[in-house]
């Protein structure tokens, strides 16, 4: 058992897949160290068999998301000082609600299948002009802008209890993407999209716990997007244009 001290971190790291155990590593504490730095140091200096995923290291790709001391977050943008317990301990787990491939790396296919199922792709109509202007001040544009910066890291999916309870639930990120497209005035796929997100696995399943909103590293509120989808569904059911 690694002892934590002012100069050393005691890091419990999940090893295995669905079945596994925590392995404890002692890692020197350094100035401005991120959680990703800690994982990388373990992998390079102590155990080369440790599996994890990262790419950009600057909060653009979203691939390094893990559960750090119980909170899903980007490890590259989380300093040790923000996450560590008072007694110098870290507990690193793979994202919840995903199938674990090995150690800290998870399978993202089922997650992105849900983006497809929520019709989270742009459906082009007839071009209105060579370059269609969507004025930034319109309500639709503002609503789309509020959710458009999602990079698909899976932190909200990991944070959501409804995803845990209901394996069919589309989840916060796909529903947020659907909402940005509902508000895209160039898109013509809303009939199919609202149908896709209206079922018991869609926006109605959301309990508005707001865990997705709490944990989203981009500061997006999928909860509000999902509430928007509910309103859009009502307008459509009552026969009004979206």
């Amino acid at each position, binding site marked *: 058992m690694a002892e934590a001290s002012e100069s050393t971190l005691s890091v419990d790291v999940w090893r295995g897949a669905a079945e596994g155990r925590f392995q404890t590593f002692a890692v020197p504490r350094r100035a401005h160290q991120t959680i990703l730095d800690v994982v990388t140091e373990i992998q390079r200096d102590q155990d080369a068999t440790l599996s994890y995923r990262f790419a950009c290291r600057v909060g653009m790709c979203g691939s390094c998301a893990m559960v750090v001391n119980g909170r899903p977050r980007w490890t590259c943008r989380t300093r040790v000082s923000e996450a560590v317990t008072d007694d110098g301990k870290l507990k690193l787990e793979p994202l919840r609600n995903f199938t674990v491939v090995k150690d800290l790396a998870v399978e993202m296919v089922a997650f992105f299948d849900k983006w497809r199922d929520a019709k989270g792709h742009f459906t082009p109509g007839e071009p209105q002009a060579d370059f269609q202007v969507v004025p930034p001040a319109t309500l639709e544009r503002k609503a789309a802008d509020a959710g458009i910066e999602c990079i698909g890291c899976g932190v909200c999916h990991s944070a959501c209890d409804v995803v845990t*309870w*209901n394996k069919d639930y589309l989840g916060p990120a796909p529903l947020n993407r659907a909402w940005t497209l509902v508000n895209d005035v160039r898109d013509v796929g809303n009939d199919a999209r609202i149908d896709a997100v209206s079922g*018991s696995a869609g926006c*109605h399943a959301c309990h508005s716990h707001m865990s997705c909103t709490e944990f989203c590293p981009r500061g997006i509120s999928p909860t509000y997007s999902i509430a928007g989808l509910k309103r859009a569904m*009502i307008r459509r059911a*009552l026969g009004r244009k979206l």
Partner: protein
Amino acid sequence: MTAILFIAQRASAAVLAFAVTVHLATILYAVRGGLTAGEVLARTRDNHWFFAFYVLFVLAVAVHAPIGLRNVLREWTPFHHRSIDVALALFAFVLLALGFRAAVAVYLPPEALLG
């Protein structure tokens, strides 16, 4: 189907928010100085507003409660098929019947009830 149930539940919730508030406020106001059952009935008998209000209340309950219960059962139990809808339609009917019976009992005079 889900869309209709969702709208029905939200609309009935809006009615209930109003009805429950009026219901509780009336009870608190009416009994503040002490009131016998006979005195209550004397005020409710033949009061059309009272009867209309409680009919609306009962309708809202019969719509709202089974839909909510359906969601709970579908989320927390293995029952997902049609039988759950049939059972909850029956539950709605029971709520309607019991509610109407209570509303009628305090609205109509005893002679009318006894035939």
